[in-house]
């Protein structure tokens, strides 16, 4: 059986002339118009440009050309991806009014593949958060239950896909920011191996951890999107110089003979209904011919602590440039230093300030070795810990998030509780490894559960094969809006 691939079928219909891209895009714009008031997935809907771009796709088809593998497929972009002439805010006041003069490399690749950008999605400010409540423009709501968070920081992208506003979206993942919202919104989300997708044009949060990745309704669609955006980019020095990945072509190869390890540390802190879903997914792998065993990687316990030293350190430097001198917000004051201070005080939200202060501290003379450098040693240990696990397993299996979507406002007063939300996703970022979250039925509360598949560097092909098997075995999610009825 072949994995479901709605975006791919949509593109094929447009390429063959069976469907007009303007109609496809028009339907999605109408859905956004009707539904985004309750969800607030988008910071900006680029309806006019989307219609123009769709018309251009149709003209190309009419003239006998091929607009590409994503012809006419609507896509939503996280608002930290630079789009030429279109506001890119990172959901921050400090970037108000800034129009990037260039497209991110991934945006260029999407346009060349025929995809149509329908808008820029909401996020935690500068991607720092796990609920999208950190946006300066108000939170995004989970389409499954609008009293719940969509996760974060790519909550807008995940909610847009879950709500049917766009079949595809891009997010960025520094500590789980694609996978965790994908899990909480019941969609597929994948963080690629560090260096496989160009970061050129991704507004940096923590450069050594950030990766752009796909969100989609199905594993096959995510695979195609990854194939389109991946591959070497000379504009990003950390981009791996290797041929473009091709995961779509191996998607149906199955898992017979693969060794799947269930990561015990990830099960320990997870809710019982989430753990039960992970075990069901493991059984599905075994039924498809994989060998399944429990595996321990003790060092992942240290991941969260190391992450909250490394990522703020880098962020404190990356976010220094928002000083009111060249672009974005400027709050005038009597001299330059006072202007810098006034601008940054007014332009950044509380969580961003917290992390800048934390990061400045951990890089300071006298503290760097105890904190930042110590965290780098944990990072090395994390890679070694995974290496040991991958000596006996091809992939690891665990939950994406320890819980399903939590109520809006329930963790905003307790940053440490919020940070715990990424405990299962952070280790892959520290190691630079790929990982994918696949929706696996509802939890006891009726909300989506995400199962995560982790693999060593450049194991995307294997990862997607396992993901396709997990997807095929997954119980269906409840219809949007019905999770509340389960609980009542």
């Amino acid at each position, binding site marked *: 059986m072949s994995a479901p691939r709605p975006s791919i079928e949509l593109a094929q219909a447009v390429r063959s002339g069976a469907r007009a891209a303007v109609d496809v895009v028009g339907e999605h714009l109408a859905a956004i118009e009707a539904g985004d008031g309750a969800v607030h997935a988008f910071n900006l809907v680029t309806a006019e440009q989307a219609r123009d771009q769709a018309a251009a796709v149709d003209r190309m088809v009419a003239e006998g050309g091929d607009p590409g593998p994503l012809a006419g497929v609507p896509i939503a972009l996280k608002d930290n991806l630079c789009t030429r002439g279109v506001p890119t805010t990172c959901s921050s006041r400090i970037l108000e009014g800034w129009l990037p003069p260039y497209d991110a490399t991934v945006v260029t690749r999407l346009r060349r593949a025929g995809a149509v950008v329908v808008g820029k999605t909401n996020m935690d400010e500068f991607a720092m958060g796990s609920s999208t409540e950190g946006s300066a423009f108000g939170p995004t709501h989970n389409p499954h239950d609008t009293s719940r968070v969509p996760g974060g920081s790519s909550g807008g992208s995940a909610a847009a896909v879950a709500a049917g506003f766009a079949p595809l979206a891009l997010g960025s993942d520094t500590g789980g920011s694609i996978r965790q919202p994908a899990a909480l919104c019941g969609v597929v989300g994948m963080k690629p191996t560090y260096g496989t997708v160009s970061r050129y044009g*991704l507004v940096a949060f923590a450069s050594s951890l950030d990766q752009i990745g796909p969100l989609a309704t199905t594993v096959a669609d995510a695979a195609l999107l990854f194939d389109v955006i991946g591959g070497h980019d000379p504009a990003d020095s950390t981009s791996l110089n290797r041929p473009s990945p091709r995961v779509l072509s191996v998607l149906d190869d199955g898992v017979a003979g693969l060794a799947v390890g269930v990561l015990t540390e990830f099960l320990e802190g997870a809710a019982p209904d989430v753990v039960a879903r992970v075990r069901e997914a493991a059984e599905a792998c075994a039924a498809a011919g994989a060998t399944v065993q429990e595996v321990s990687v003790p060092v992942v316990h240290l991941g969260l602590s190391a992450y909250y030293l490394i990522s703020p350190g880098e962020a404190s430097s990356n976010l220094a440039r928002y000083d009111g001198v060249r672009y974005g917000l400027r709050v005038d004051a009597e001299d330059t230093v006072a202007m810098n201070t006034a601008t940054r005080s007014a332009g950044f939200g509380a969580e961003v300030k917290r992390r800048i202060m934390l990061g400045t501290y951990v890089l*300071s003379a006298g503290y760097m070795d105890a904190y930042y450098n110590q965290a780098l040693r944990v990072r090395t240990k994390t890679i070694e810990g995974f290496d040991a696990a991958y000596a006996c397993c091809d992939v690891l299996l665990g939950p994406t998030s320890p819980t399903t979507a939590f109520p809006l406002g329930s963790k905003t007063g307790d940053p440490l509780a919020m940070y715990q939300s990424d405990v299962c996703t952070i280790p892959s970022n520290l190691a630079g490894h790929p990982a994918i979250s696949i929706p696996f039925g509802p939890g006891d509360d009726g909300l989506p559960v995400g199962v995560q598949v982790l693999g060593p560097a450049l194991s995307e092909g294997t990862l997607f094969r396992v993901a396709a098997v997990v997807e095929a075995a997954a119980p269906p999610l409840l219809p949007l809006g019905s999770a509340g009825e389960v609980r009542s």
Partner: protein
Amino acid sequence: MKPGWEMVVGLEVHCELKTASKLFCGCRNMFGDEPNTNVCPVCLGLPGSLPVLNARAVEMAMAIGTALLCEIRPSTFHRKNYFYPDQAKDYQISQYDEPINVNGHLDLPDGTRVGIERAHMEEDTGKTTHAGASGRIHGADYSLVDYNRSGVPLVEIVSRPDMRSSAQARAYATELRAVLVASGASDGKMEEGSMRVDANVSVRRSTADPFGTRCEIKNLNSVRSLGRAVDYEADRQIELIESGDQVVQQTRHWDEDAGRTVALRSKEEAYDYRYFLEPDLVPLVPDAEWTNAVAAAMGPMPAARRARLIELLGDAGGRAESQADQVATVVDLGLDDLVTTAVAAGVTSALALARTANEAATDADAARRLDPDSYVSLLTMEASGSLTATQAKAVLADLLAAGGGDPAAIAAAKGFEAMSEDSLATAVAEVVAAHPDEWGRYRDGEDKLAGFLTGAVMKATRGQADAKAVGAELRRLRG
């Protein structure tokens, strides 16, 4: 320098590399263009932009390392974090604890060996102009920032504290400049800021004493400023110590007009730059093939070229000092070939050196492009007497301006034909007849009137006569 004291000087020299493009982007690296025209998302530090290392800049840094006999090694880049409006990202990408070049040295013409601790790569900042009476950021009405210089490649060359006088400091800066130019990495223009010098100065009573507390002096815009500032600072520190005070470790600013250094900030006020490994770049590991290719492409360094010229020119006959200056100028400007070609063609070494160091040097760029054959034929015409020195200089100026040409044709076009012996004799005779008093006094032994009579002949012939030939004719007539 007060007796009983020794100064200790180490220099940090920032050298802008003369690459076509910037260190981390493709923007033009060009001094003096319209402000903010050579900029892009990368060198403006726009959100989402990323640096990509310029391979040509790496080659030039390796050339500098080779010229300074450094060990060239695998290196990394760090971020140096501090807020300043002309710092586009509010951090500078610089090499920190793993620089590309370490442990070299530079020998000064007086034989002193100055150790080179490191020569590392970094990016330049933009340039801020403060409008208002002070010209500094404090008290400015507003400030303008030009990012054309933002991201221009620099190599910072850090010497060991091996200099003991302002003369040595000046000699080091002069020799280093010549080496940077010769290595092809820099144009060495201090006045355009492509070479910038900071001096670390301390004093002590005896060579056996440990180093004293040092001060770093910034804003040294010429070799002359360097010498003055170092002397001033050493004297200031000696006075402090002798009056019972202590030298405080400081960064100080050289005020050229006032001729003194003023405190900028103390060690306690020094920035915490929060250096950490630049995550947007990967380690730079040049292989042996690359470093060898860079070394193989380099010509000889100034010291070797000066030695070669002096050997070629032979005994200077008591003019050793002026010849050494002329040789230094020729090597500094890269005009060695003009001198060696002329001497090989039989032109006297004195003439070849003088015309090259004095006249060709006035437009060195054009002189380096000049066809050596036409230069040689010009000097040969002068040496044989068919052109006077004045005429030869005029023809050379035309050759340089036109980028070449046939000196004989230019001389002919200017009417510079050497006078025949007959017409020269006639011209002299006419002058003698016209000035009987002066001629009489000259004939009676008043030699200084030769100058008056020669001048009169030159005027009458509109400079066409050869002054030496006129003098000879006058002496012949006197008998």
